[in-house]
């Protein structure tokens, strides 16, 4: 198992799709989620588009685990903030300075739905698309190879960062760093963890640049590719349809904005 990318190897139709088809679908979901003037659009798309896709891609369980662990903190914090600062409305209960209003909670839930949609789209994409396949197809549509490389390696940074942070955390704990306790104790632990993480990353970037340069990355010869990724006419048309839908979604938003 590749521990440093989110990719989950499965034999599925979703995995076999041309990476750009999946990328444009992800983009469509992102734009639709942010622009559609329908309150519950986020949840609707997650439920009726992303979930079926995750099942088709045979990654539903892994997918749910990650989406859940990333979304939950979001949901909780947005709801708390809304319930603290939402002005007028019908309070659900009142306790000390806390007085969550029904309207605030509903609004928060709606906006969280859009955030979940965007994250879920990206996670599903990363889980079912091999990084190298993405890189090749990006280059095929004319993205410069250095940019394609940056996009692809950035997609893998988040899981790598998490792994590294926990390694450093363990190392510093074993040297006696206190990371549990009250807020003050915890905040003192931030520097010994962040500093090695950042410095280590800088070193890593330099060495990685040397390593790929040594392997001819900046060569001005015409590149070749070991693997071939099949595209189909049907997918080409599908991508055009996605593009039209993106535009329609934006138009709908503008029209709605003007009418209200």
């Amino acid at each position: 198992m590749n521990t440093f990318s989110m990719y989950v190897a499965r034999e599925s139709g979703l995995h076999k799709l041309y990476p750009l088809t999946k990328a444009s679908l992800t983009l469509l979901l992102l734009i639709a989620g942010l622009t559609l003037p329908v309150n519950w659009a986020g949840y609707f798309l997650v439920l009726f588009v992303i979930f079926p896709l995750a099942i088709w891609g045979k990654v539903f369980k892994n997918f749910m685990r990650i989406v859940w662990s990333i979304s939950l903190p979001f949901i909780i914090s947005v709801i708390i903030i809304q319930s603290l600062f939402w002005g007028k409305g019908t309070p659900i209960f009142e306790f000390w300075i806390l007085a969550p209003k029904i309207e605030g909670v509903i609004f928060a839930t709606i906006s969280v739905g859009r955030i979940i949609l965007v994250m879920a789209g990206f996670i599903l994409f990363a889980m079912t698309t091999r990084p190298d396949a993405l890189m090749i197809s990006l280059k095929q549509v004319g993205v410069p190879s250095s940019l394609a490389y940056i996009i692809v390696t950035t997609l893998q940074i988040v899981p790598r960062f998490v792994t590294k942070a926990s390694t450093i955390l363990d190392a510093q704990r074993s040297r006696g760093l206190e990371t549990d306790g009250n807020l003050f104790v915890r905040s003192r632990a931030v520097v010994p963890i962040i500093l090695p993480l950042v410095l280590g990353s800088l070193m890593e970037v330099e060495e990685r640049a040397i390593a790929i340069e040594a392997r001819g990355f900046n060569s001005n010869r015409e590149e070749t590719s070991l693997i071939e990724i099949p595209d189909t006419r049907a997918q080409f048309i599908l991508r055009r349809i996605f593009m039209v839908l993106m535009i329609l979604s934006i138009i709908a938003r503008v029209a709605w904005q003007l009418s209200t």
Partner: protein
Amino acid sequence: MAIIDLRNVTYKYPLTQESALKNINFQVNEGEFVAVIGPNGAGKSTLCYTVAGFVPHFFKGELSGTVEVAGADSSKSNLHEWVLNVGLAFQNPFNQISGAKYTVFEEIAFGLENIGVPRDEMIPRVNDAMKLTGISELADRSPYSLSGGQQQRVALTSILVMHPKVLVLDEPTSQMDPIGTREVFGVIRTLAEQGMTVIMAEHKVEWIANFADRVVALHEGQIIEDGKPQEALTSDVLAGKGFGISRYTSVARKAKETGLWKKDKLPVTLEEAVEGFAHV
């Protein structure tokens, strides 16, 4: 004829006071296997980067003197052309994984893709290189799932597959066990016999004594010893300067003081030590 030719090379990294290399004169013949030794900070990596073109092209800083490899002058060349002649693998294998490839096989092919080798040529080249370094059975694994020693072999293979004239290796076996180290030294020895020129920064003196043609000792940016491994590694010049010294040399040196070691030459390897003490 010298394929590597450094003349009066002095180099300072940007924003530093002291030169990392001072007046280096260093010639290497084609097919020679040269080990570079020295304590931490002596300039081994810097020398490697200089031969590989990353000093000064990548690190910038001030370089004086001339660096020539295969007749080309480093200061008049582009790094992306230079790397076609000079392959570089360094210590930390993790950072040498491209991060854009899913299997070891594809990782090794990465360099060949970049320099435009056609697919039907690429596959046999990758297979041959993996067979040479003994990692054929790792072909379908993810590079990230490997041990440090295995990753170092992948890093070495990824460079070998590009068929450089000169191979520069900066502590390429630091994460390998003795068996792995022996195998890699063996592979490099074979390559040198086939005509590849090898520069290798390395601390493991007993292996150097067994496999290298020549040893260059660096200290504070200067070459203080240059010769056959047996002589260079036992030289008095290295004493007290923090060089890694073979335990057999240390034992024999002590034994010599008490007259127990009778030979002139001090041993580096176990075999030499056994042989010397056998005549007592």
